């Protein structure tokens, strides 16, 4: 028998029963109230820090600096800015590198972890997750040391690649790769753990059946495990795309730490920041932010639609 290429993750209640969870005995009324409390808290925060700023950004993007409806003039001026297209090109290159790396390396590592003995796997999961503790500004500092050939523990490797000083490492053509490496280094560990969790949700019976049918580890991973965690991969890509288009901290800090080697308008979010705070034009900056939002939503919608993410089977 050939294993079915399409399978579904059993629902939570089935898994819970299999795991012998005792908490399922709680009265339904209590659990429903707790659910509302948790969701309520989230909704309040979402309204305050998600919906309200978004609405304000849309309002700013559609109005003039001194007040009055601006139609599309803020958008037109932003799109006409000589830094607009290069900024999107930079982030496009960065996203392509980062997302391909995520979709391949994270899955490969998660699948490898899943095939290891539990204790070994736990040690590796901890190792992979460690860099995640140094997210954002801290990771930039670490990478500034790692990438400076005169300071880096990998200086032999960097020198062998022809990089004798940091100016050569931070050439404009290298920047998308460098920021993708930083993002992967800090973000991959968390996603590996998430994917590992998703893989653990696959019933042992299913994998056992595949093994009995003659599927080797590679076939089992490709035909059973990957289709079953597809939705998690799509979820990861949606978040990465939305987060990646908003790249800011890494180019901004690397630029400041190297006396300006990276332009302060390298990414669209930096450009929006520059226009808002250096040119004091919040309306045009808001137009760029809204454009990023639309881009993120469009990317998410495309992935949701193409992968039927929200379909319940």
């Amino acid at each position, binding site marked *: 028998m050939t294993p079915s290429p399409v399978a579904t993750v059993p629902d939570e209640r089935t898994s819970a029963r299999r795991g012998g969870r005792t908490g399922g005995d709680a009265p339904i009324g209590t659990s429903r109230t707790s659910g509302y409390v948790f969701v309520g808290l989230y909704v309040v925060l979402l309204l305050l820090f998600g919906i309200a700023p978004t609405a304000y950004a849309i309002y700013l993007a559609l109005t003039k600096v001194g007040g009055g409806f601006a139609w599309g003039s803020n958008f037109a001026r932003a799109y006409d800015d000589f830094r607009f297209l290069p900024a999107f090109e930079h982030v496009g290159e960065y996203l392509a590198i980062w997302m391909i790396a995520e979709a391949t390396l994270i899955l490969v590592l998660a699948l490898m972890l899943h095939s290891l003995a539990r204790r070994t796997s736990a040690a590796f999961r901890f190792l992979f997750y460690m860099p995640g503790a140094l997210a954002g500004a801290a990771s930039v500092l670490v990478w500034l040391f790692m990438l400076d050939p005169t300071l880096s523990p990998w200086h032999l490797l960097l020198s062998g690649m022809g990089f004798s*000083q940091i100016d050569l490492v931070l050439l404009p053509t290298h920047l998308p790769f460098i920021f993708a490496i930083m993002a992967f280094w800090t973000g991959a560990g968390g996603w590996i753990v998430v994917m590992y969790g998703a893989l653990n949700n696959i019933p042992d019976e299913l994998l056992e059946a595949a093994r009995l049918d003659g599927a080797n580890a590679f076939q089992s991973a490709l035909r059973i495990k990957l289709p079953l965690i597809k939705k998690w991969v799509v979820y990861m890509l949606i978040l990465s795309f939305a987060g990646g288009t908003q790249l800011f901290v890494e180019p901004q800090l690397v630029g400041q730490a190297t*006396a*300006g*080697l990276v*332009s*302060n308008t390298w990414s669209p979010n930096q450009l929006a920041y520059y226009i808002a705070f*250096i040119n*004091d034009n919040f309306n045009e900056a808001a137009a760029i932010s809204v454009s990023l939002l639309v881009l993120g939503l469009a990317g998410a919608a495309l992935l949701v639609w193409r992968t039927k993410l929200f379909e319940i089977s």
Partner: protein
Amino acid sequence: MKEKESTNTRRRRARWLRPMRLVAAFACLAGVSFTGAGIGSLGAGASSKPTLTIWYDTARKPMLQAYIKAHPDVHVVAVLKDGDSNGDGTYQSAFALYNRVGHGWPDVYFSEQNNDAASLSQPPFNDAAVLNKGLVSKSILGKFAHGSAGLCTIGGKVYCLRNDLAMNVLWYNPALMAQDGITSVPTTWQQWAADGAMAAAHGDIIGTQGDSWDADTFYWGNQCPLSHVTSPGVITIKPTSTNCTEMASLLDGVPRTALPVAYMFSSTFGSQYGGKIVFYEGAAWMGGVFPGLGSCKSTNPDCTMAAGYPLTWGSGGPGVTGAIGGGLWFVSSHSKHLKLATAAVVWFATNSTAQSKLSPGYPAYGPDDAAYVATQQASGNYATPLSGAPTLAQAFNKAANEIWAGWSAVPYANDQIWASDVVPTLASGGTQAAGLGIFAGDAGNLARSDGFQVHS
């Protein structure tokens, strides 16, 4: 039973948590107080005193401490800032927000960024107060070095006082010159470039290129019109001018080993080049801070720098030079204590002790120059000038009056453009000539986006 235990545990935890929360709350308050007041605690203590909020950078801390000590009647809230250096836009970001909410402005602020007067005095920021229309007397303004108000003056209005001039001079190391067989201090760019081969043969350097100061050193110093505001709203950015192209050709002809692509304040400059700098056309404040001279001094006690006249283009060429940095003192037009804030700014920029002993740069206020030079000479940081070469005082005084006024302050940061757009070209083996074109293109775009009419 379980529930009882858990209640007891919660009580015990609560007993521990209460004082911990108090400690945390105090720590937070102390943190806010520390970051908010900084070193201002020296002047704190009397709420009836007028309060001045002063933004300073680390190099200005001794001056500020002296001001607080000398003015016990003023409550100073001192806030440490980055000086808005390298075109970071820290101050612009803050003022954009303060202008929106209608409060938060400092009374006095110090900036390391040369173009801040052009930026912060004009729309949309409109913060810097006009100083020469009643706030600072003509007699005080008249004692500042010739041309020092250039970067502070927009349309006849003076918006800041220069703290120091940062004019470029030719730094030279007499010990290394003797070692490399160079017998006289060059006075022209051509002689300097020719000496590059001799320095390179001994593993030494005659300067650096490929940092954000290139334009301030080489092109400003040769009257190259890359930032020349000819009338309000009109700027000339002309990289094809002979003054620009001849300098680019000269620099491209110097061996890269003698004029490497390097940044003086990078973490490794000292170890790589510290003891190898024969010449360096650079700012007056650099004399005492060249990195890595310690390693050179350990083998040669005389390994220190002396200052020569700024280089000229050809023998008998015009005596002009550029400038790298030089601080600016501003009074916020939003200050509730305009007179007191102005008095503070005047004190910082003119006080003899502050300028001669507590400030690293050459005072823009003329009467303080002699005392500053005397302090510098007594510091032991400078070499004895070679025979026939100028003294420190002569070199500084001449250079201070030769800063080319045609390099105008603009709302965007020229050094930021050079660093992000030109340095990568130079680092990957490109030429200064190519860099000039790149700079002009990007500076032109920025100038247009800031409303300038660009002539090229």
